[in-house]
């Protein structure tokens, strides 16, 4: 009997977090730690010829200065992907701990280890680096041209990877007479995750091994990467992950853990800490890939898609990190979302001299949806069809099965979500009413849908391990390798455990901290996989634990197992419902038995060879002040079908957060680069325009619950999906309001000024 799943259980970490007691990485670090600060390059591309550290070493309090000439000659990968035992599928190893070949403005060339942060900062300023400067390139398409600066030696024309999709025959199909051609180029920006806790870590040696405590989403993966980077056996590294102040994909990468660990080994294993500043977080961690997408659609006047072409150019920046998987995910969504018989898709991931792009909430889908859903409204405008009608006609139908992933759309998610959103926003009436407005201030409504799939099977491994340990009082601890990063999985898991084992939620204790020495193997928090993937190992481990408990109950009560059940922490005789004993009494007796003392635990690994679509949509209403070049977001509604909600209140909160990130993506956020030097100009929270409390309307989240048949709990992705469709919905609302089709985000006043002038809406 399910009792907890589906309830609004209070977060298990709520008390500790609301009192400020929850311990994050820096809270755990001894105040006597040495401070590591990184010296970043002041050129975008070139080679370090020499580094003069003498003045820096003379600064009082400086313990050691180490440079790119001192690091092990090992190139390592950083992406937070499960390792592949097949070398062809391993992540690209293209950076060292510190780099002589400097590939972006802000690359790591040296470190200072000092007694305190002031000494470290003074020493940083005293380091003299001599460079051989090379030309640099910031744009992906420019980087692909012959003669462009070569950023990574092994990759001709800076192309990290190319992949394609072919269906039918695009060239032949587009010849059909009477087709309407719609073509557009769509640009999305380089943005940053902006978790409020910067990445930081500290490291020390204990019993001959390196221990790193880190603000990461992926402790088991980081262990592997640290070992690879330092050339150590993997078992010589231990990673501990406490509470983290947000991650959003940036911390789904090995960031500075390898360098910090190495620094400790260079000072005799002393405790060293490396905390990123906000500026370093913006420049020298990871960013979202800027992707430029070219789409051509040939459409019949009735809205039938006949032939479509997509080219996507993904700006990887200086290092491969998550690499091609990001743009490939978006490209693969293209023929699925609006099935069309004749499709040609190509995507390229291209090295440039920007900061390295990695994973970020949505993993290529926000970019793909901005391009794709903007383009759908451009088609609608061209053929005079309503955006809603076009989508109803063309979106992926129920029963669709993807040939590669075998994902199946089991329910009519799109139409159900659109129905709900439409009703909440009164979309159809407003869409008509807002056509053909005049005057300086106009309103508009817009719609966009999104495609998403849960987890990463079959592209890479999906497995989850779980351990449960029963206490004397009938309560239990459980652990998984999947991590709490703010999204609430500790709570959702606790609810699942309570139901699966048959004990009250108050008797479930989650071990929130992952420690690679004791936490069962699991690859961490990413791909919106937590509730889906974790659910399998929790259900399976709970089953194993129940079997052990009931076997012991059989020994203790002499009733056959087939007549026993564990309900709400009580051993119950099924035939008459009588409570035979409490689970606590059973556990105590088992532990302290003079005949057969046993502790009661279970631990299993579940390998998951399925994956689930998770779809939904956004509806936006805007007010555009044309002379002031300003968009005010009046309403934003997101509707999701993420299957059965484990905890509706936390699900709603997740959706709000994704919507907020997407509002910034649509309207204000972008890293800006100095074209002369390649430097990031706005590496701080003042100049990088993250939405504030005053930049949002009330956020409205709604759900359609079609239980996912492949999940033990009927659940599927929700972490990333909310960030995927608001930006194009806002863009399409501006189109409805003004008739102006914007082809890039963020849609800032600067962009609107140019576009409104082009459209003749403002004159000088």
């Amino acid at each position, binding site marked *: 009997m399910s009792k907890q799943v589906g309830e609004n259980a209070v977060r298990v970490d709520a008390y500790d977090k609301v009192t400020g007691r929850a311990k994050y990485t820096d809270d755990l670090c001894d105040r006597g730690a040495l401070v590591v600060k990184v010296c970043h390059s002041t050129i975008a591309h070139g080679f370090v010829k020499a580094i003069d550290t003498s003045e820096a070493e003379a600064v009082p309090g400086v313990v050691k200065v180490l440079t790119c000439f001192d690091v092990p000659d090992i190139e390592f990968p950083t992406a937070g992907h499960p390792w592949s035992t097949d070398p062809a599928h391993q992540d690209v190893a293209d950076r060292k701990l510190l780099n002589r070949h400097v590939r972006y403005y802000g690359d790591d060339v040296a470190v200072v280890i000092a007694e305190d942060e002031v000494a470290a900062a003074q020493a940083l300023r005293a380091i003299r680096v001599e460079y051989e400067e090379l030309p640099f390139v910031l744009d992906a398409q420019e980087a692909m041209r012959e003669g462009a600066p070569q950023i990574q030696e092994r990759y001709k024309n800076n192309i990290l990877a190319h992949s394609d999709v072919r269906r039918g025959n695009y060239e032949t199909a587009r010849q059909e007479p009477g087709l309407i051609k719609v073509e557009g180029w769509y640009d999305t920006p380089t943005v940053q995750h902006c978790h*409020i806790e910067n990445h930081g870590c500290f490291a020390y040696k204990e019993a001959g091994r390196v221990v790193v405590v880190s603000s990461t989403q992926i402790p088991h993966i980081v262990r592997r990467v640290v070992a690879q980077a330092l050339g150590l056996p993997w078992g010589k590294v231990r990673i501990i992950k406490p509470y983290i102040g947000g991650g959003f994909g940036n911390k789904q990468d090995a960031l500075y853990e390898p360098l910090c660990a190495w620094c400790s080994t260079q000072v005799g294993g002393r405790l060293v800490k490396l905390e990123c500043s906000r500026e370093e977080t913006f420049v020298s961690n990871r960013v979202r890939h800027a992707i430029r997408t070219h789409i051509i659609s040939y459409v019949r006047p009735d809205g039938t898609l006949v032939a479509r072409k997509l080219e996507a150019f993904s700006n990887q920046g200086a290092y491969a990190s998550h690499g091609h998987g990001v743009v490939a995910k978006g490209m693969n969504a293209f023929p699925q979302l609006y099935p069309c018989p004749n499709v040609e898709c190509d995507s390229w991931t291209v090295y440039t001299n920007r900061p390295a792009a990695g994973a970020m909430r949505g993993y290529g889908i926000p970019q793909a949806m901005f391009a794709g859903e903007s383009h759908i409204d451009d088609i609608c405008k061209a053929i005079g069809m309503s955006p809603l009608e076009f989508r109803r006609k063309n979106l992926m139908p129920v029963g669709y099965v993807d040939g590669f992933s075998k994902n199946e759309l089991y329910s009519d998610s799109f139409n159900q979500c659109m129905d709900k959103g439409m009703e909440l926003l009164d979309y159809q009436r407003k869409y008509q009413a807002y056509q053909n407005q005049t005057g300086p201030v106009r309103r508009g409504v817009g719609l966009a849908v999104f495609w998403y799939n849960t987890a990463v099977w079959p592209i890479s491994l999906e497995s989850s391990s779980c351990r449960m340990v029963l206490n004397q009082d009938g309560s239990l601890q459980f652990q998984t390798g999947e991590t709490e990063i703010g999204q609430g999985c500790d709570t959702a898991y606790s609810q699942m455990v309570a139901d699966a084992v048959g004990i009250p939620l108050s008797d479930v204790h989650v071990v929130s901290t992952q420690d690679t020495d004791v936490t069962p193997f699991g690859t961490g928090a990413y791909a919106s996989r937590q509730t889906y993937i974790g659910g399998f190992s929790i259900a399976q481990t709970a089953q194993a634990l129940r079997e052990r408990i009931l076997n012991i109950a059989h020994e203790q009560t002499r009733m056959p197992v087939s007549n026993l059940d564990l309900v709400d922490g009580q051993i119950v005789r099924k035939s008459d419902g009588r409570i035979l004993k409490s689970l606590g009494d059973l556990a105590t007796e088992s532990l302290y038995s003079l005949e057969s003392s046993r502790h009661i635990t279970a631990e299993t690994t579940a390998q998951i060879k399925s994956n689930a679509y998770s779809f939904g949509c956004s509806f936006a209403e805007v007010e555009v002040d044309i002379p002031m070049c300003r968009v005010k977001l009046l309403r934003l509604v997101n509707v999701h079908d993420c299957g059965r909600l484990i905890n509706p209140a936390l699900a709603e909160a997740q959706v709000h957060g994704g919507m907020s990130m997407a509002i910034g993506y649509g309207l204000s956020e972008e890293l800006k680069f100095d074209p002369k030097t390649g430097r990031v100009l706005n590496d701080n929270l003042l100049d990088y325009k993250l939405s504030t409390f005053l930049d949002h309307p009330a956020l409205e989240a709604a759900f359609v619950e079609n239980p996912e048949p492949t999940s033990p709990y009927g659940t599927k992705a929700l972490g990333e999906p909310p960030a995927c469709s608001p930006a194009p919905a806002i863009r399409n609302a501006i189109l409805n309001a003004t008739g102006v089709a914007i082809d890039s985000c963020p849609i800032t006043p600067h962009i609107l000024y140019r576009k409104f002038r082009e459209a003749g809406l403002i004159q000088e």
Partner: protein
Amino acid sequence: MEKHQLQYETVRFNLNGRDVERTVDVRASLTDMLRNDFRMTSVKKGCEVGECGACTVLIDGETFNSCIYLAVWAQGKHIRTLEGVLGPDGQLSDVQQAFVEEAAIQCGFCTPGFVLTAEEILETGQEYTDEQLRKLLSGHLCRCTGYENILRAVKKAMYRRLGKEPPQ
């Protein structure tokens, strides 16, 4: 390089209702002193330049970013951190309780600052509109919640204190 002349000063102030004194390096920020000398983990470092609000404390009843406030300026002040909001037996304040009830907490890193500012706002005893509350809370950045449930929590605590039903 010229060696820095170490300069220390003894600061006496009231911290969460208790008179305290510490001898601190004059170069320390109030964040440094509260985190390092008093181990107040509620005072978070998010940007160190007054742009995120995670290090917010109350100084003589007003909210300040403790990162851009020198520790020595605390002399003679009444300073309140989130640790001082909790009841003696660990009871949550009404604001904290509302944050818990409204699922206004996710990663938890911005939470202490928001709660303190909300305490300051509600201590005025006034009733504010949503727009006013948004403005009063706008010195804190949050990347997890979209601010939505934080607003709901602060409103809930406000109406409870005012003994009123929230308007529909």
